[in-house]
Every structure is written in C-alpha cells, then in structure tokens.
C-alpha cells in the first residue's frame, strides 16, 4: 500500500552563474512514497510551470543511477540520506509527512553553478583528458584472450572503474577535493596490464590537472567514500598517492605541467 505525505522544500534558486542565489520555499503536497525524489521535483515543477513560473532546473537523464547526471545536496548530504544511492534512485519512502527538506546544488569552486541545482562539472572531463585512458588506436588491439588477467586483479580494477563521475565526492568533501574521482581512474588503469606502459605519466598528469582545476587537497576526512553512490573506497586515494610517489621517485624531473 502506498502512503502520501506533505513536505516543505527549501530549494536553492539561482538564475545564472553570475546572478545571486537564494533559498525559496515550496510546498510539495500529496507526495506518494513510491515516487522517486526527482519525480517529486517533477510534480513541483509541473505546478510551477502551470503558474507560468520558471521550474527548478536540475540535471538528470537515465534515472537509473548509472549516467551520473543527477545529484543534489539534500539536507546537507550529497544524494540524500540513504547512502550508496544516486539522487534519482532515492525514493520518497525515505521521508515522512511534515518533513522540511533543504535542496542545494553541489558546492565547490571547481563546479560553478549554471542554474539552480545545475553545476558545471567539466573539470572532471579535463582530468580524464590529462591521461585517463590507454593510448590505443582503433584496430591496433591484440586478440583479447592473449592477455590473461587474474580475476582478483580484474575485479579490483572494476571496483574503481564503477565511478559514474557524478561529483558527489567533491560536494561531500570539506576541501572540495576531487581525489576520489581522480584516484578511481588512476587505480582502475594502474591495476590492469593494459594501463602499465603509461602508468606513471598518467598519475602525474591527472594529479597535476586535478590541482590546476583548483580542487582542494585530500586530508582524509572520508566524506567522499560515504557519499559515493557506487561505494568507491577511499583506499584508492592511498593507491593514487603511492602511484604518484613512485612516479616522482622514478622520474622526478618529468612532473607534468598542465594548464
């Protein structure tokens, strides 16, 4: 059986990157507990639109927890109270009648607000551009089974590769550090033989780009791991640090400079 509830929302509204923002109160009435959080916002938006008011802008796409597009801070917690969940997979059964809910965008200098709850996460793309790949031309690959990879290594690499690039780690970190995001990609490729030839250069370049984007440093608060919808372990940050140290010891003069 479904139950319904009435909520009060305090939503961050900001018309553009340069405009000042503020919280605005909205009533969300007759919300079914089977609704997803974003469906609840859809209903609020339909009502706003019907009144000719600008609906609340938020990023979302697959609504299956895999594309990484969605993400808002709900009562101070990125992706809301449940843990291990993207905002789109959060359902209203986690709330109760009469709750007052505060909804904000990711807050980080490297993620400027575009509008309302939408932020610019292109810094993540630039970190990948710095070296988050295997330099491989299409068609040059050897036969797939010519390179056996121990299941345990492959599985560990997978644990890092599940990052969806949503940015909750940055939003959760008091320093707005992108260490978990960057470490996940460095670790994914460092644990596989395919990533070996560029391993050191990759670690140097990606970390340099992360710094250049003005993300903060990691001081091991662990908030990122707690907020990560895919449960990516903070252990990968330690791995990233080892990768970087090893790269710098091996070839200290080649620390990459990136814009």
């Amino acid at each position: 059986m479904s139950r319904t509830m009435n909520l009060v929302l305090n939503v961050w509204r900001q018309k553009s990157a340069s405009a000042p923002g503020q919280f605005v109160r909205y009533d969300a009435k007759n919300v079914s507990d089977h609704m997803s959080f974003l469906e609840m916002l859809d209903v609020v938006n339909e009502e706003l639109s019907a009144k000719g008011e600008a609906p609340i802008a938020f990023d979302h796409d697959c609504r299956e927890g895999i594309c990484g597009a969605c993400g808002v801070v709900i009562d101070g917690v990125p992706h809301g109270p449940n843990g291990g969940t993207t905002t789109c997979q959060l359902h209203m059964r986690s709330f109760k009648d009469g709750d007052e809910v505060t909804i904000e965008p990711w807050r980080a200098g490297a993620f400027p607000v575009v509008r309302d709850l939408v932020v610019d996460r292109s810094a993540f793309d630039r970190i990948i551009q710095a070296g988050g790949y295997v330099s491989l031309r299409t068609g040059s690959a050897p036969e797939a089974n010519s390179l056996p990879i121990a299941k345990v290594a492959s599985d560990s690499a997978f644990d890092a590769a599940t990052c969806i690039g949503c940015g909750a780690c940055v939003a959760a970190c008091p320093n707005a550090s992108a260490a978990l995001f960057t470490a996940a990609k460095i670790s994914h490729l460092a644990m596989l033989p395919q990533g070996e030839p560029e391993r050191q250069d990759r670690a140097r370049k990606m970390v340099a780009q992360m710094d250049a984007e003005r993300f903060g440093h990691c001081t091991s608060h662990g908030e990122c791991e707690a907020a990560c919808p895919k449960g990516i372990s903070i252990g990968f940050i330690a791995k990233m640090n080892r990768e970087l140290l090893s790269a710098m010891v091996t070839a200290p003069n080649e620390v990459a400079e990136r814009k």
Partner: protein
Amino acid sequence: MDLNARAPAGPIENRWSDHRFQSKLVNPANRRKYHVIVVGSGLAGGAAAATFGEQGFNVSCFCYQDSPRRAHSIAAQGGINAAKNYQNDGDSTYRLFYDTVKGGDFRARESNVYRLAELSVNIIDQCVAQGVPFAREYSGLLANRSFGGAQVARTFYARGQTGQQLLLGAYQALERQIDAGTVKMYPRTEMLDLIVIDGRARGIVTRDLVTGKVSAHVADVVVLCSGGYGNVFYLSTNAKGCNTTATWRSHRRGALFANPCYTQIHPTCIPQSGDYQSKLTLMSESLRNDGRVWVPKNVADCSKDPASIPESERDYYLERLYPSFGNLVPRDIASRRAKDMCDEGRGVGPDVAGVRRGVYLDFGDAIKRLGRAVVAERYDNLFQMYERITGENPYDVPMRMYPAIHYTMGGLWVDYDLQSTIPGLFVGGEANFSDHGANRLGASALMQGLADGYFILPVTVSNFLASQKAGAVDTSHPAVKQTVSEVEERINRLLSIKGKRTPDSFHRELGALVWDQCGMARTEAGLKTALQRIPALREEFWSNLSVPGTGEELNQSLERAGRVADFLEFSELMCRDALHREESAGGHFREEYQTDDGEAKRNDDDFSYVAAWEYTGDLSSPKLNREPLTFEYVHPSQRSYK
C-alpha cells in the same frame, strides 16, 4: 526514389573485406582539412568521433548531456555479443549472423548483418585493450554467458554495467582526442536542424542549452549517432533526454525513415507504480537465465502473498509453452506472453486502473540450486537496484516484471555504407535502421553501436570524403542562414503560445495513446484511432502549450517542448507504418495476423521489404519507398522457439 543499398555481391564472408579494400582513402596530410560533425557521444558517436580524430580528421562532436560520458549507452546492463567461440560451444561468425537474421524475423539486410557478426570479435579485442574490465574466469581468461534466446554463450559482460564500461572506454578514447586537439567537444548542445545545400548535408544548426545561442556549424560530412525514438511512448527505459529531433529533422530535410513501427519491448522492466511515473527501469534480461517467470494459475491467487501460493498452483507459462527455450525465449515473445497473462487477469502487483500489470520473476529455485552467494555474484547490483525502487528484496520476494519500450529497430534508412538518402549524411547506432530487422536480440545493441562507430563509419566516411573537396561551404551561405532563421522562428513560436499545458502533459498523453494503440499489440482499428487523434493533439500542442521563461537561458521546458513537438510528428509516421504493414514480424505484432497458437505470422510474399518513408511536406501523406529484401543464405522460416 531509387533505394540502392549498395550492398556488395559475392560470397558473404568476403563482402566487407572486399568493400573495405575498394573504399578510397584520404591522404593523411589532407585529413585535417575535412571537418566531420558527429552528433551524439554514445557507443556509436563516441567511438566514431574518437576514431575519426585518431585518423587525423577535424572533428566536432555534439551531445545534449553535460559530458559525453553520460550518453544513454551507459545504461545497458547485460552484455555484448561476439562470435569468439571461447566456450567451444559451436559458435561462429556464421552462427551469430544466422541467429541475428532469424531473430530479426527476416527483415534485415544479410550483408549488413554478416558484417556486424564479423566485426564483433574486433570489438572485444578493442575494448579489452582499452582496459574495459570484462568478467573473467579464474584462469584469467574472459568469461561468457548465454543471453536472451541464444543457445551458445557468446555474451561478454561487465557485472550488470556492460554499457557503462564500454561507454567509458569510448569516452576515454574521445577525451584523448579532445586533448590532442583533433576533436572539439560541444556538450550541452542540441542539434535542432540539418543544413542541406544542393541536396548534400553540409552541417547542422544547434542550440547551446546554457546560453540559448543558436549557431550553424558547417562541415564536409555529418554523422548522426543520436539514438532511438523510444521516448515517443513517454514511459520507456530510455533516459529522459533521449529524443528523435536529430533524426526527425533530418527526415524532414530529405532523409528517408525506415521501419518506424519496429519497436522493441523489453520483457523485464519494473512495473509502473503510479501516474506520476517518469520512466521505467529495465532489469537486465540476464535475470531470465536463472529466474523463473510465473503467474498464479488462479485469478483468485493474484492478490495473495506469492510465498503462500504452492508450486502446484503456479503457472510457469514460458516453460509450459516453449519447452526448449523456456524462460529464454526472445524478447518479443516473452513480452507478449506477459501481456496475455495480465489481460487474462492473472497479473500480479498493484491494481492500476483495474488491471494488475506484472508477472513474477522468481529466484527461489536459483538460490536453492546455486546458493545465495552465486546468485549475488551474478545479479546483486540488479537486486539492489530493484529493492531501491520497489522497497522489496528479491532474495526473499519474487521480483515483479512487466514489459516496457526499450529499443527501436527502425531509424533513418542507410545503405551498406551507413549513408542516408541525403549524400553526406551518415547514420550510426540505434539512429539507423540497419541490422536488427524487426526484432533485436539481447546484447546486440552494444555490438552494433561499436561496430558502426569504431569500424564501419571510419571506412565509409573516409571513402565519401575522398571524393569531396574540403571546406566547400561556409556559414555565410544563404541556405545556412535560412536554416538558422527557421530554427529561431520555431523556438520563438514555442515560447509565444502562452497556453495552459506543459510539454510533459502533452508527452504523457501522446505516450499513453501510442502505447495503447501501437505498443505490444496493434490492430487496424486502434491504429486508425491513433492516426485520428495524433493530429488533433498536435494542433492542441501548438495552440495551448505553456513554456515559461525565454530562449536565451537554460530552459529545460523549452528543450522538452521542442522534443515533444517532434515526437508529435514522428508518432504519426510510426502508426502509419504499423498500419500499412499487414503482417506480424518481430516487435510488430498485428493481432489480425497471427498463427493459430498466437505467434507472429509474417507475410513474406507481400512484406519482405524495408519500408522507407519519404517526407512530402504533408505529415499525413508520406510516400512509401520499398527496398526489397532477398535472402541468399538464411532462408525465411517461421520462427519457432517451442
């Protein structure tokens, strides 16, 4: 119109290699002079853009998402087929080709399908080398599973996130080219029209979704990899942003639209829970490998706790009706049978508008047989997803499933080179119609997207460019300005109606209409009803739409309005195609055309062709062109999975 597929002749196993050899090359020193536009950054578009960049072309890639990593290919769960025969279970290129032609109910072009099967093995090599963490055996070699109706284990998978891992591989290759300066990426940018000059595709008009700026981009070739049109049904498993605007606008500019009535319903999706529902979530078909599908034998049991219904009172209807394939029958059959059970009143789950629309997918036996740990290893992330959405734990309670629109086999008509009927406009991935006929087999969409993107388009687009002079037009051309002004005028029209209904309310109404009349089962009368109501709904849209705000800002209502406007036009063509095709084939099931035991009944004498529709300027009277299909290798037979 003369529809020349330009499919090569000769022995089928030599066709692609011969064709590739005969394709012309562009001198490496000249490649940067050619501007290639790629629309879409999913498996087809991302792979193509990265590969064009590696080849040295000057590439611009566009996507509506904030990053190319978010294209909807990312949501594919189950896997990707390849004829590697690693399991030594009798697989081969020919068998994959055979299965795909048969699975498509003999409505695909043999030459294309063979090439797809042939390239499948290269895709796995490519992705493994990129670092895609496919599942492995303890030997360290790649693991496979059997998937969606295949009797061999040829599916490669990466937990339940195969699409994500493959897309990240393509995305990383693309980012590498962006860094190298060969690809310029335009995220949050939507293509709103195609620029055609003297019958040639010469560029696109886009809207920057942040600033609202409308711009023209001219190029030597345009490659659309903009996905399918499943969101015409409003509720589908597609991402919310998926749309048909790029393909539909190109259709209006002269590209023929092929087989729009071939839509695929996926049998295992989480049932709708209420009328606020914004999308449906697919649960990978791989669940059917170990889950058993059933409904109660008695209508009276349908509202009971499933645990209280004894074995003897359960109807494992797929195992009963199809003893040899059982729960692994192809998607169209599994879907239609689920609908039949619910229509009979034997559905389970919440009663929505008087009907329970759900069937059980039960892992009780699998957990007994394999143990909870093995089941968790295979499906845990899917189980977790199901529990988040429904609040029910599949380890304890059977899942509830119902079919939903998932994939669209129809799309822009393309020849063997993946070129549309507009020279210079190529179409890859789900956006084209080419390889799946009337029904796509599981784990074949990722295969097709990557075959098109990594291996086919780079050859055929190069061949096209080799005979073109680079940079023949610039943005000062009057046709470019004309197209831009038409786009701006349309945006202004959407904003100036100032009516009462939101884009979503029209979209929901359209979706419900086409789902009822042009969904899992179609009838002449139903389709005629839809064809009457769609133009009326379109008229109301253009007189009673409400879009708050302006065009010069991030305006998500405006984005939706434009997409819904195109769905309102496209849907009419889809229904018209379904009405004209007086047979049942694959995902197109016409109730009038079925065998005595309720299976799809093809009419090869009259309908063994690709229906390629031409825009005439009047939405209600498109012109039908036919590309006859001939089968030299796989001879049409009645599909039987009994």
